[in-house]
């Protein structure tokens, strides 16, 4: 098992290097404004622009730039500096991470608490009014774009512009440590938005899994043993049906930690997603590179965690 994990981590690091290289390439190939020019301001002389180009290292060839970047990471754990603010990318990310973490954790709790019971009840009461109503609502949520739902909620409930101003709206997020109460209320709407789609997806996924599992032979065996139906459903049915859901959950968490760009942007939560969004707008390449690496790292780690977790959930799975 230890060997397996080490191997997976080494592969993960290689993958991250490849992701960096790809990001470099994309930035080079696709048209973007010249960072040096942007930084120099509107009426800068060519000399100043040249000076800045050299300062940012943009006069080197692409492979050299990449090599320097990798050297910085591996030797000094230095992810470069913003073209604009000159702040270190690492410190920017560390500053922004708590907001994204808050958003993700709350939303995950919410959608798990909503999606899983709904999925189970729908499967058990298949075809009932409850099932059809729940799946209808789920379909609606799945079909709604996140940004649209976010704007609608703001329109109705935001304390500044809402028709029923009951909850803090956009740009109200404060850190957990500075004011826990405000932190919580400011995140309610973003959590709801993020959780709505996911809860819908999870309930449908679990419902489908559970329906399939309840048709398995071992469920018939459990009933033939004389187990109470409740135990048949939970210990035998849900236990099997939930395993793939746990996998998806791990990957979703990994994905969200890389930044919920849409939700963070609409609600102006200064997390990783918004950082990335702003950096793209300003061609601030070191930040884009940093956030991309972070997102890729979260997904790779989530994959490893999920695969290891699977071996615990399903005893048939063995790694070596």
């Amino acid at each position: 098992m230890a060997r397996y994990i080490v191997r997976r981590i080494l592969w993960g690091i290689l993958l991250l290097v490849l992701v960096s290289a790809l990001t470099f390439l994309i930035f080079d190939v696709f048209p973007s404004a010249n960072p040096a020019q942007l930084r120099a301001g509107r009426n800068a002389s060519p000399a100043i622009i040249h000076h800045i180009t050299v300062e940012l290292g943009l006069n080197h060839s692409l492979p050299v730039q990449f090599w320097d970047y990798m050297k910085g990471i591996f030797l000094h754990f230095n992810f470069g500096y913003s073209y604009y603010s000159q702040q270190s990318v690492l410190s920017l990310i560390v500053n922004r991470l708590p907001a994204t973490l808050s958003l993700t954790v709350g939303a995950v709790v919410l959608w798990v608490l909503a999606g899983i019971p709904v999925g189970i009840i729908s499967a058990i009461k298949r075809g009932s009014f409850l099932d059809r109503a729940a799946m209808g609502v789920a379909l609606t949520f799945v079909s709604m774009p996140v940004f649209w739902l976010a704007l609608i909620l703001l329109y109705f409930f935001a304390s500044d512009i809402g028709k029923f101003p009951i909850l803090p709206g956009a740009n109200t997020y404060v850190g957990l440590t500075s004011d826990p109460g405000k932190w919580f209320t400011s995140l309610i709407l973003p959590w709801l938005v993020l959780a709505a789609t996911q809860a819908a997806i999870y309930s449908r996924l679990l419902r489908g899994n559970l329906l399939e599992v309840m048709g398995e032979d071992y469920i018939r065996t459990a009933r033939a043993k004389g187990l109470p139906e409740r135990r048949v459903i939970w210990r035998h049915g849900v236990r099997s049906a939930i395993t793939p859901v746990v996998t998806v959950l791990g990957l979703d968490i990994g994905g969200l930690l890389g930044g919920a760009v849409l939700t963070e942007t609409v609600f102006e939560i200064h997390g990783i997603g918004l950082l990335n969004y702003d950096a793209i707008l300003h061609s601030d390449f070191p930040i884009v590179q940093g956030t991309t690496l972070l997102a890729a790292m979260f997904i790779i780690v989530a994959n490893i965690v999920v695969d290891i977790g699977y071996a615990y959930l399903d005893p048939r799975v063995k790694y070596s």
Partner: protein
Amino acid sequence: MTEALLQVDDLRVSFDSEDGVVHAVDGISYAVDTGKTLGIVGESGSGKSVSSLTTLGLTRGPRAKIEGRMMFNGRDLLTLPDEDLRKVRGDDIAMIFQDPLSALHPFYKVGVQLIEAMQSHRSISKSAAHTRAAEMLELVGIPDPKRRVDQYPHEFSGGMRQRAMIAMALSNEPKLLIADEPTTALDVTVQAQILALLQDLQDRLGMAIIIITHDLGVVAEIADDIAVMYAGRIVERGTTEEIFHSPQHPYTWGLLSSIPRLDNPRDEELVPISGRPPSLINRPSGCHFHPRCPYARDAHKRVDPPLEAVNGGTHLAACLLEGTVRTRIWDGIRTGRDLESLKRLAATSAQPVVEGDAATAPESEGTQPEPGEGSLVESEQPAREHSTETPFMGPEEMP
């Protein structure tokens, strides 16, 4: 012999489906005594599994209609409330299934699954149940049971898994064990071991066994009595001796002719039963077997044969051919006479009298049996057809 352990009378199970009503079991009766083995034989779709699942209440549901009587230990299993029936399941009546890999939960250790079976019916501590689980594995011949009890099903071989299933089924010392195709998914050598094990356990523990199979060869080994099912009905019933030595129904002949036998000449070909099992939604008119029966006469398409005693004994068969003709045909089959001459022989059998004669050949199920011959099964058919349309079903409904 006083009262049978399980006495089934006129059991009928039908399911509403989108294509129509599926008559899975259509008025069957049988009995099993303590310490005895009944073999129920038939093709897929003959209703043999449904009838046994019904014993445990596992066919109950909003779309199922279950009628008849199923007396077990003085109680009618069909009218037992769900919770009471649950207590019977796995305790007084246990069941094992065809594919032992898919029948065991892949995520739980074998021992845990046995413990669960015990604890759902007895108040027994986990450690005591664990010890007993290992003892049960030993009883069914699993080597090194103390280690095996903490392994997962996927670490067992196919035969071992079926042994573990049997151990689980027997852990509460049931009075009746229902084995649904217990050897079908296993290798031939393992099949024989499992059958020998079942017989050995029956000798030691004294439970009754119902063994369900499509393979007459399997029941020949261990059954005392055999019921042959076709299209939801029992078409022949008797002791194993009677079924193998003087089979009365053409379907049974077909089953027997399709078993390879060591005492037959090597170059003799096995004779398959032609055609396919009938739809249980639109069953053939008259004798349900007539489309596949090489000996069927014209009137057999319209008259539904009752299950009648052969020679006034316990041997029953539902066939419209005359008894003497049947005996001669079976003798002919055994001695290798060709089919054409046997068909000519069948043609000498007197045809049953049809009410209103052949003026209008009714559609399936519309057939009116000749009054004198109307069996229990048949005389109730029109009434039952009517009642399938009523949606009410009290005790069968799921909670």
